[in-house]
């Protein structure tokens, strides 16, 4: 199983029946492909839709029905559309049960940086800051390391996305949560030891008595 599939499949296990879920671009988008059989959740696209469906078949796309990246999507029966004030009312108001976002860095206190690299990448935060500030649960889905450097850091060197810590980080090698505000290793990827995870993690991780393997 490749890294992205591990992450997406593990994140999908966090979804609960009836959840309203917002997926960011990149790896988070893949989570939709791994929703457990029979589990009903609602996916929100922050450009104004609840009930996003898969990419439409050839010839069925409509230019006025797209995801937040402007790419054609479909809508499921029971979908609802709304303006951006409503969309962010849902997000900021705590009506989104889970948001899954990508990350550049998450630190030992659960703080996320995912929207800019000063002087290099300044695209704008879009909806990320509202999602992290307002969603009930924030899950970060990202590679554990980039260019050989751990993305789980002691303290974020990049500008924070929110003062509110995230709830969970799922990477290709570990699941990390923040009970009591402290980064804690909850699971390792199949076949990896705790020591192997710690060896490539910059942040200090608390290690509970039991650290099971991800069940994928």
């Amino acid at each position, binding site marked *: 199983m490749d890294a992205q599939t591990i992450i997406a499949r593990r994140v999908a296990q966090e979804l609960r029946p009836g959840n309203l879920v917002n997926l960011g671009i990149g790896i988070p988008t893949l989570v939709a492909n791994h929703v457990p059989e029979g589990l009903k959740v609602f996916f929100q696209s922050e450009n104004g839709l609840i009930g996003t469906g898969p990419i439409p078949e050839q010839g069925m796309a409509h230019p006025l029905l797209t995801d937040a990246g*402007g790419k054609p999507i479909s809508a499921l029966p029971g979908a609802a559309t709304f303006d951006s004030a409503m969309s962010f009312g849902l997000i900021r108001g705590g009506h989104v049960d889970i948001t899954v976002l990508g990350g550049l860095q998450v630190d030992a206190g659960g703080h996320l940086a995912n929207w800019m690299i000063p002087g290099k990448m300044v695209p704008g935060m879009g909806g990320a800051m509202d999602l992290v500030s307002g969603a009930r649960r924030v899950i970060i889905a990202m590679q554990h390391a980039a260019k050989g450097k751990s993305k789980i850091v002691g303290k974020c060197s990049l500008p924070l996305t929110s003062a509110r810590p995230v709830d969970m980080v799922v990477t290709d090698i570990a699941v990390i949560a923040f009970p009591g505000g402290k980064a804690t290793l909850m699971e390792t990827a199949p076949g990896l030891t705790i020591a192997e995870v710690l060896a490539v993690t910059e942040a200090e991780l608390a290690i509970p008595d039991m650290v099971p393997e991800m069940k994928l």
Partner: protein
Amino acid sequence: MKSVSAEEAVAMIPNGASIMVGGFMGVGTPERLLDELVRQKKTGIALISNDAAVPGKGVGKLFEGGQVSRMIGTHIGLNPKAQQQMLANEITVDLIPQGTFVERIRAGGCGLGGVLTPTGVGTLVEQGKQKIEVNGKTFLLETALRADFALVHAFLSDYVGNLSYALTARNFNPVMAMAADTVIVTAEHIVPVGVIAPDHVVTPGPLVDYLVANG
């Protein structure tokens, strides 16, 4: 409400005007008005738009000829021209959170001075802003935003300017239609009064100043 051509509508906009443009990555943007802004070479535009779209689409077109001097938006990452002009300091770009962006415009349209949002507290976004505590929780005071013109794209307009929108093309259009001194609308379909049921009207006609006639 008056009916005008796209050419007449854009001719009313002076250089240097602040212009809100509806749309999200070019979806729900009044494309004909953007084309006309390009053709009439309007310059010094203070653009208020969620994003910079992509080159050749929606507000993306305005960056190619350097028509924008300032922008307030939330994301310009998919338009390399806009990125490049910002990094070269040729244009000033205020990038703000999307929920804050839409609430500031809504406040401007609804006569509110601003709103208190938790978004941005403890980040770069809080710089220069008043922090206000309510029941022990900290919020940023984000002030109302208005523009000289709003360019709005609807799905249906009736003859008196009642508007409805389609799918994800609604986005920022309804709030912008309330927040500008002059509101100019294009619609995919112009229909007789009564075709849009009262419960399905999203933007009531009295908010619309000019409806661009279809070809």
